[in-house]
């Protein structure tokens, strides 16, 4: 029955307890049972005392004295109440006080309580009502939840009924004559109650065991939870320590502010700085805005830190960054101040991170100074480079100018104006008989034809010289543009204009046309259908003149029948490429990589500037310049690629 009761108390689905948990449950039940018994012992100790006092009081009230005539003595009931009652009660009280919870104690109490029932029944003359004391005592003893105590009480009661019923039936039943077996009836009723009380005790034990098992399970769970909490707390503490270490180890000065600017938390570096500032400037403690307003010097165009904090706090998104200076002169320190929203359970809080950038600012200042020095040096070097470029390009054009001037001089030297002077002298000489001279003198007869031929010759000379002079003017104009372009390189940007690529190529070729004709170079133009480009005319022209001039010079050692220059144009996406291909001396592979370097040249009288400046110019107009050669003696091809639409003007 006990097992059934215990099983009924188990929870469905509950996992089987471990052995240690079962042992803990047993230990808890043992303590629980013992504590309950000790508590009941104390209650019975009080009851024993009350019964004793009650017996004395009752004896004193009902039969205080016994009389012999006029002489009274204390009634034996009083003596018995004091003596026998005290004897019955004293021992269980002693046990309850000295050995609470012990089995001996509760069995002694059960025995004493049975004696008290017997005593009451006897003193009441075996009144039936007094027998209820037995049943009440049994119910009280059931508080122990130990059915063995009920057995002790029941056995004592049965024996008492048997003995007194046999020898003093009036004492227990209130009648003189009674059946000797009546004690069995009384004992039967006691057993009847015992059955229910024993069931109650067993159920109470089962409930107690179940309660203790659950308590053990709960303790195990709590222990597990506590261990987990302890572990988590330890991990959290370690993580907190780690974060604090990181927080205090970073170079930045970090603090969090509430909506009034009060510093909520800060790392060690900020604390150190704020302590320094507070002691120095006598500021009120911990108000960041006061510190920022009085100690930090911001650039005047920047938003103030207080306003920035308010804005970041209001939006709770985005961030604000500025640089501030602390102190002046050599002791000035620079900080980058980043204001970030503090995404935490604190509303309207912000995090302010101060990163010292004094070294960086100093480096920047030093770099700026160096840059200024470099600019000056570069300007000077640039001016020299410009001068070199001008001299080079102007020199190229001056060759053509020289050629044109020589042509003009040669034409003048070959001019027939001397013949005209002789004709004029002869006419003046024969001015008196000019008609005779013209008619009869054979020389005079030759004059008209001579004048006609002379006129034709002089006209032809004039045409040739006009042509050369036009070329000379073109060359001079190019020199002017070169100078202007070099000025633009040095100072201001050029002007982009929409250009026809074919015209540009023809113009560049025209600069070198006479030279190429003189060197017997066969040149060809291979134009594709290319769009117009928007570029600086003179830069493109400078590049092309350079490329054509170089090609011409590269073919000086090439047999005259193999000298061929081809200029072709192609449209490639958003670019236009202009290729200048010659059949000249070619370029070695090792020279291909450095051919655009400043100062590199393979010519005896070269400066290494032409291709360098051309490559720079190509970059400036947003294009590129590349070279390809299959090797020495196999010619070379220079390709200029320019954008169709130059989006960014050359303004540097």
């Amino acid at each position, binding site marked *: 029955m006990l097992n059934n009761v215990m099983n009924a108390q188990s929870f469905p689905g509950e996992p089987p307890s471990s052995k240690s948990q079962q042992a803990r449950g047993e230990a808890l039940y043992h303590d629980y049972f013992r504590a309950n018994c000790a508590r009941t012992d104390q209650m019975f100790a009080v009851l024993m005392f009350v019964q004793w006092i009650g017996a004395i009081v009752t004896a004193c009230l009902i039969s205080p004295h016994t009389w012999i005539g006029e002489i009274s003595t204390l009634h034996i009931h009083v003596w018995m109440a004091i003596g026998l009652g005290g004897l019955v009660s004293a021992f269980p009280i002693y046990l309850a006080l000295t050995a609470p919870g012990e089995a001996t104690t509760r069995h002694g109490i059960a025995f004493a309580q049975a004696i008290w029932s017997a005593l009451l029944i006897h003193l009441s003359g*075996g009144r039936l009502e007094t027998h209820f004391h037995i049943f009440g005592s049994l119910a009280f003893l059931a508080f122990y939840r130990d059915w063995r105590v009920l057995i002790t009480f029941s056995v004592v009661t049965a024996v008492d009924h048997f003995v007194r019923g046999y020898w003093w039936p009036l004492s227990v039943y209130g009648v003189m004559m009674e059946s000797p077996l009546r004690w069995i009836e009384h004992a039967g009723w006691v057993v009847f109650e015992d059955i229910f009380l024993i069931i109650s005790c067993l159920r109470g034990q089962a409930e107690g065991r179940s309660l203790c098992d659950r308590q053990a399970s709960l303790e195990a769970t709590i222990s597990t939870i506590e261990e987990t909490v302890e572990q988590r707390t330890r991990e959290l503490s370690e993580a907190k320590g780690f974060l604090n270490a990181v927080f205090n180890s970073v170079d930045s000065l970090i603090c969090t502010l509430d909506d009034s600017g009060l510093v909520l938390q800060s790392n060690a570096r900020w604390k150190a700085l704020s302590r320094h500032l507070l002691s120095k400037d006598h500021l009120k403690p911990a108000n960041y805005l006061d510190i920022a307003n009085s100690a930090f010097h911001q650039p005047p165009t920047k938003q103030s830190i207080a306003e920035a904090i308010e804005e970041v706090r209001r939006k709770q998104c985005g961030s604000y960054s500025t640089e501030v200076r602390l102190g002046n002169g050599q002791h000035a320190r620079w900080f980058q101040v980043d204001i970030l929203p503090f995404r935490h359970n604190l509303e309207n809080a912000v995090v302010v991170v101060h990163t010292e950038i004094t070294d960086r600012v100093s480096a920047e200042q030093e770099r700026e100074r160096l840059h200024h020095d470099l600019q000056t040096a570069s300007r000077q070097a640039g001016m020299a480079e410009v001068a070199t470029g001008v001299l080079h390009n102007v020199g190229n054009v001056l060759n053509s100018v020289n050629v044109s001037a020589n042509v003009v001089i040669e034409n003048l030297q070959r001019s027939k104006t001397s013949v005209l002077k002789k004709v004029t002298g002869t006419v003046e000489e024969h001015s008196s008989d000019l008609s005779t001279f013209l008619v009869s003198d054979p020389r005079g007869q030759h004059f008209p034809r001579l004048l006609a031929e002379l006129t034709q010759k002089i006209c032809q000379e004039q045409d040739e010289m006009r042509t050369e002079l036009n070329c000379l003017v073109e060359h001079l104009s190019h020199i002017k543009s070169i100078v202007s372009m070099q000025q633009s390189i040095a100072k201001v940007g050029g002007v982009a204009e929409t250009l026809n690529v074919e015209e540009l190529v023809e113009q560049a070729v025209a600069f070198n046309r006479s030279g190429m004709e003189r060197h017997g170079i066969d040149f060809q133009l291979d134009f594709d259908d290319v769009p117009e480009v928007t570029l600086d005319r003179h830069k493109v022209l400078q590049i092309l003149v350079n490329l054509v001039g170089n090609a011409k010079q590269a073919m000086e050692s090439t047999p005259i029948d193999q000298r061929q220059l081809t200029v072709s144009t192609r449209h490639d996406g958003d670019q236009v490429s202009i290729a200048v291909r010659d059949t000249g001396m070619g370029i070695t592979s090792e020279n291909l990589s450095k051919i655009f370097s400043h100062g590199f040249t393979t010519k005896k009288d070269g400066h290494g500037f032409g291709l360098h400046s051309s490559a720079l110019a190509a970059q400036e107009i947003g294009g590129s310049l590349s070279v390809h050669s299959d090797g020495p003696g196999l010619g070379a091809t220079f390709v200029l690629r320019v954008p169709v639409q130059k989006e960014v003007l050359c303004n540097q």
Partner: protein
Amino acid sequence: MITPAASKLIRIALPFAWATSVVVGMIVLIDYSSAPGDRPQSSNAPLSANTTALPLGNNQSTAVMFLHPQCPCSISSVREFGRLISRAQDDTAVRFVIYEPEDESPGWRETELVRMATDLAGGTENVLFDRGGKTARECGVNVSGHLMVFSPDGACRYSGGTTLSRGHEGDNAGANQAFSALTNEDQDFLQCSPVYGCQLFALEAKNAE
């Protein structure tokens, strides 16, 4: 110095000693309760009420109980006497003889027992206060709760108690004999039984007299 063995022996012996003491005490108490008071000497018992100053009824049976007004045990005797009267004929004359010392003590008569007796007797006229126990001595009675039943002709038919022990009510032989004496008019013999209660006077004093 108590050795462990002695201590263990004490722990075992002490409960037995206590239980034994308790049982012995109970036996003593029961024995005391069952012990009757000093029995009246039958030789002194009046065989006829006519020889005494007892207030008998007229041509009717008379039941006379002697009481000590302070005796607690006699309450049970009076109650048994009351049950006896209620069961017997209505024409039984009930009388009480209440012992009273020579020198009347204040409040001696004012006890619960006297009030019960007065009520049962039907009035104070049926209650005789026996100063110095003279009447009791004449009747040979010296224990409170002693009942005497007289036939209408004044012959004593019963002399004894109405309880079987001190202060214990309940069915008992004495009460049955008294009831028989009251209800059986043909009974011509005297029956006696023990009386349980306080003594009306000391026997030594009586003997001295």
